[in-house]
């Protein structure tokens, strides 16, 4: 009775945290019906993943700025410090290079740390530890020293945060052998990839997106399960299509789907691929799609030069899909400038739905 009352209170208090409240509601069986699909925000999906992995494996712990008593700068780790305490959820001073090195060292000594960067812009201070200490050690030691650490946090553009807080690091980390790099879009992606990353014995960089944190997605029964994982290294076809392949990651996937919804009215069927993993990249899925559609557009928030789209284009050139292209592959990227502040400028520095529609029509010559 007390438990049910507690659940009701939590439900009432939850307010905007619909997903969490409803999940509790379903778990405590107040309605007495079998669990079904629920709406869960990316934030809550990440929170669930952290909670489940902390519970599952004693060696897992979370460290970073404000992750404990503040409940996380973006509330991703809400409630975890209360539940797991100081040993498992550690607030660090503002010392990226130091605490990232500490996370990597802890991983070398047998723990499974999750190292949060408040944003990936700050990871630049610590990038030596991520690449040289975490990424390369297994290779340099010929397999003797694995580094099972997860680096996670928001990546790329937010809203009005200015140039120093808006950079996308997918290409930077995706460049380096030894690292795995994942980039979730939906709640399912976020939960499944974070869990898979924690269980992976290798250093994984997980590039989240702040603007996606509050977005709800439907999570099926299967996805809600504590053992649901999204495999690292496999892309997902979010929408089947026949006329053009749109490849994207993170927030841009949503824009691609929006563009597809508009284009379908004009009889154009877009196939939308959600990369999910930047490294190792699932080029096979892209190739299979291009063989089918004969047209390729890549969409990303990062800068054009040496970016994710550039890599995809190069790989398509090298593989069987090249012969199936009816037009050169096209890249949509962030504008080649530091991110400005003013709204109108910022908006025009990222690929918008209208840009995707324009590019599709260009590529299809319609």
């Amino acid at each position, binding site marked *: 009775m007390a438990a049910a009352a507690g659940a009701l209170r939590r439900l009432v208090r939850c307010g905007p945290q619909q997903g969490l409240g409803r999940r509790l509601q379903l778990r405590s069986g107040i309605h007495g019906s079998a669990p079904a699909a629920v709406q869960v925000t990316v934030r809550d999906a990440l929170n669930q993943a952290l909670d489940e992995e902390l519970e599952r494996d004693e060696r897992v*712990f979370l460290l970073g700025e404000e992750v404990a008593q503040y409940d996380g700068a973006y509330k991703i780790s809400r409630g975890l410090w209360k539940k797991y305490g100081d*040993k498992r959820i*550690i607030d*660090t*001073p503002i*010392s990226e*290079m*130091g*605490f*990232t*090195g*500490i*996370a*990597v*060292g*802890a*991983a*070398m*000594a*047998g*723990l499974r*740390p999750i190292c949060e960067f408040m944003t990936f812009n700050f990871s630049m201070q610590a990038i*030596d*530890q991520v690449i*040289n*200490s975490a990424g390369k*050690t*297994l*290779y*340099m*030691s*010929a*397999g*003797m*020293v*694995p580094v*099972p650490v997860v680096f996670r946090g928001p990546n790329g553009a937010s809203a009005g945060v200015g140039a120093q807080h808006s950079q996308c690091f997918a290409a930077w980390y995706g460049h380096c*052998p*030894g690292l*795995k790099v994942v980039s979730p879009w939906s709640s399912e992606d976020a939960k499944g990839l974070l869990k898979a990353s924690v269980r992976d*014995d*290798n250093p994984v960089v997980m590039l989240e997106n702040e603007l996606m944190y509050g977005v709800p997605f439907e999570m099926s029964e299967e996805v809600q399960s504590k053992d649901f994982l999204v495999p690292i290294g496999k892309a997902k076809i979010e929408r089947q299509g026949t006329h053009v392949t749109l490849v994207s990651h993170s927030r841009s996937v949503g824009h691609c789907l929006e563009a597809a919804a508009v284009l379908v009215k004009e009889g154009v069927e877009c196939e939308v691929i959600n990369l999910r993993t930047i490294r*190792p990249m699932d080029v096979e899925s892209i190739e299979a799609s291009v063989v089918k559609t004969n047209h390729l557009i890549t969409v990303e928030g990062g800068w054009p030069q040496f970016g994710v789209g550039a890599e995809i284009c190069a790989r398509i050139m*090298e593989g069987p899909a090249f012969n199936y292209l009816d037009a050169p592959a096209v890249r949509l990227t962030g504008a080649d400038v530091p991110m400005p502040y003013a709204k109108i400028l910022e908006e025009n520095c990222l690929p918008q739905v209208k840009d995707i529609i324009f590019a599709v029509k260009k590529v299809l010559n319609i």
Partner: protein
Amino acid sequence: MRKMLLAALSRVLQGPAAAAAARPVSRVVVASRNYADFASEATFDIKKCDLHRLEEGPPVTAVLTREEGLHYYRTMQTIRRMELKSDQLYKQKIIRGFCHLYDGQEACCVGLEAAINPTDHLITAYRAHGYAYTRGTAVREILAELTGRKGGCAKGKGGSMHMYAHNFYGGNGIVGAQVPLGAGIALACKYFGKDEICLTLYGDGAANQGQIFETYNMAALWKLPCIFICENNRYGMGTSVERAAASTDYYKRGDYIPGIRVDGMDILCVREATKFAAEHCRSGKGPMLMELQTYRYHGHSMSDPGISYRTREEIQEVRSKSDPITLLKDRMVNNSLSSVEELKEIDVEVRKEIEEAAQFATTDPEPPLEELGNHIYKNEPPFEVRGPSQWIKYKSVG
């Protein structure tokens, strides 16, 4: 008295007699190798350590058993000869790239190891061959790693700066990066609660790196069982300590972290100081800082002759007055823990071991090309790694 007389006579005769390939009869008579003549242990006065934020420091005397002495001697001599052999192989261009030699600093790695358990952890920077050895890697595997062969401790994939062993985390190339790593290892020690500690080493040059101060802060804040150890060999590459640091009292640079300054050329001093620091850490009091004052005979690396920023006289003076192996040898011989002959025999054995290891290191084949793609990921199904072109692929297994 008789022992001292015998020892003295033996020393006198050893000089000129050795060159003439000795008169076995007289050697046997004068310097008999009767083990009953050796003491089982002796007590030595050691230099008092300078203290920072500590009321008491390590003891000022140390007991050395004969067994310990012989072990330390053999280990230091092995490292010395191994490093000199590396010098030789480098000049023959059989070793490539970077090669940072440790000769002169042997008392540090051997003294540290003597004070800790194999279950404790250690991490250092790139002047790491001595530590690779004391932490359990065979000489032949170290040399074969330097020569880039498949029998190297990292299968030839790491090289001089990236040797690892059980509870030894290298071998790190980026100056200062190993310090946060070491604190992370100490965090794991505390987390697992197995009473283990981590020795985290860096040099006088690295001591000015910002990430070290970030690490001091967190280690002290969280009371991590970490001994920060600054091997001060007076020069960061070609820059003397006076030219690099506003404060050269490296043992004080941890500010709120208690520190001791140790004579790094005296193995007993290093051992006792480390025992003291280890006890402090194990008792949960948090980190401690040790500055080991030591010296390297070689330049910064094999590409540095080491005489443009210091004088030959200085090097010679350290060699003649403070050599760690000579210091131990004199102590042992003068206190009947061993004899010149016995130690010479060890020298001969060590030389042989190094020669055999060098032989292995120069004849073992290079790693097969297939090895190129391996060890990218751990516990991953085999996958393909791209070579210099799209048509060249390597299989990768973890």
